[in-house]
């Protein structure tokens, strides 16, 4: 069944979009990632113009994250205080990111920069997570005591001043790295057109030592606002948000997110991390493939004075 997209000005299959939204929503509920890093490349692959894919992807991410965050709030696995501090840094970072985005576009080769950033970031984050989680699984299997947080094991981050207590996360940590992390992710989010969950989740786990179950809900909470901010910027400046497209994706997404959140509960922390690592690595490989393998057609068309 076809549906006509008023902003993208093309007709697409509604069931393909629903399936796409459901699959990404499932993963987003399971891993606490908004799914922006999946939905945007998928839409571009489905011939949606990149500018519309980025902006509409941000819009759809709000729905999936909101739905997922509600599920986590109910279970008490959402740290509002930590999320709010991260968000304060995030808004600052994404404002600077939007400025740098415009600068890069003026210089040219923005597409290449984004692709490289995706491959490097996803590859690094995915690789590190994979190594860590596989080790954790081997330790569990060999019968060693599960190495949860050992008391007294602190890294340099815990020596910084301005400490704040985050009760839900059982953390007592300086606000400086939290704000910095939020800002860094906000910056990348604005440039790459994603919510930043795939960086946020591992950063919270490994840098701040937040328990895995709290990480997912808190990350989703922060993503809602970063994605909303991105949607507003794009709709005001570029008019590239297609609500019809976003809505169809959302309907699939929110359904998937609820099932995903439940599936995530059944898995242990290291299994969840290994799966997310595999997913992130797969996307990195797919993008690297596009970058390094000869494309089917060397030529591409861009309409001027339009989208």
């Amino acid at each position, binding site marked *: 069944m076809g549906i006509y997209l008023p902003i993208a*000005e093309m*007709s697409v299959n509604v069931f393909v979009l629903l399936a796409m939204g459901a699959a990404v929503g499932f993963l987003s509920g399971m891993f606490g990632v908004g799914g922006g890093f999946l939905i945007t490349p998928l839409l571009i692959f489905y011939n949606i113009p990149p500018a519309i894919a980025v902006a509409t992807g941000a819009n759809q991410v709000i729905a999936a994250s909101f739905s997922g965050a509600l*599920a986590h709030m109910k279970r008490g696995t959402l740290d509002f205080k930590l999320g709010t501090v991260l968000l304060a840094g995030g808004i600052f970072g994404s404002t600077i990111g939007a400025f740098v985005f415009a600068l890069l576009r003026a210089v040219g080769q923005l597409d290449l920069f984004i692709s490289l950033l995706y491959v490097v970031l996803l590859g690094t984050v995915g690789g590190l997570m994979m190594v860590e989680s596989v080790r954790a699984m081997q330790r569990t299997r060999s019968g060693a005591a599960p190495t949860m947080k050992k008391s007294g094991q602190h890294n340099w981050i815990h020596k910084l001043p301005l400490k704040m207590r985050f009760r839900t996360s059982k953390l007592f940590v300086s606000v400086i790295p939290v704000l910095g992390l939020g800002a860094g992710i906000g910056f990348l989010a604005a440039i790459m057109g994603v919510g930043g969950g795939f960086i946020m989740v591992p950063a919270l786990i490994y840098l701040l030592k937040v328990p895995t179950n709290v990480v997912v809900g808190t990350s989703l909470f922060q993503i809602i606002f970063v994605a909303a901010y991105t949607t507003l910027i794009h709709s005001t400046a570029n008019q590239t948000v297609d*609500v019809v497209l976003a809505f169809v994706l*959302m309907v699939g997404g929110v359904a998937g997110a609820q099932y995903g959140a439940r599936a995530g509960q059944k898995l242990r922390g290291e299994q969840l991390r290994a799966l997310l690592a595999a997913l992130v690595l797969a996307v990195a490989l797919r993008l690297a493939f596009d970058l390094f393998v000869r494309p089917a057609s*060397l030529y591409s068309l861009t309409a001027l004075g339009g989208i």
Partner: protein
Amino acid sequence: MAFRHLAWICLAALLASGSALAQEANPESIEIGLSTDRVSITSDFAGADLTIFGALSNPDPLISRQGRYDVIVVLEGPARPVVVRRKDRILGMWINTRSETFLNVPISYSVATTRAFQDMTSPNNYRRLSLGASNIYMEPENKRAGPVTIQEFTDALRDRKQAIGLYNHRIGGVQFLSQNLFRATVELAPNVPVGTHKARAFLFRNGLFIKETSAQLAILKAGFEQSIFVASRDYGFLYGVFAVALAMLTGWLGRIIFRKD
């Protein structure tokens, strides 16, 4: 399909004048009739066939019986500038390097013909009439670029347009219903551009170009789609707020309907 129901009815007057005044002295002529000058795209639009009726005036009955009249109908979309980029391998990566901008390239170009191109008339005639996707003149912005480069990028532009279905042709898409009357079916791609399209019909007799006629057709978005489009352009910020609110509402509803805990 909204399009399928649109009957394109030829004017009765054309028929009458055609048969009554068949004289040696009067040369043949061609007319196309559109029953409406605007077509709206509704939300269930998924590409369609557009039917255009037309008529010949003063056809020679002998040539007509031998099937030596050929008609080509073209539906040409609005023209826009286009950048064609070429990727090259640098440090192992495929990166956009060179590009050429072309002015006034028709976004879409659909052709219907009575027979295969090579059977109707000579390649020279097609070139002279700028007829067919391979003969549209693409004006390069950079006039000093070498002819080889321009040729390469022009070919790439046509090839890409054909690959995404915006440039298409249908051999046998024009059929004679009687000696005078013909019906042309042109293909509208799912991503057909909105705007003013120009329908043109060319008449050939024994491979000789006789006459050309044209009509305008506006393709528009229907009410709901148009309102969304206008809102996104005129009230960008409010539109964004609406999009965010809609997303949150959907997320909340989804939570209620699909809750699993």
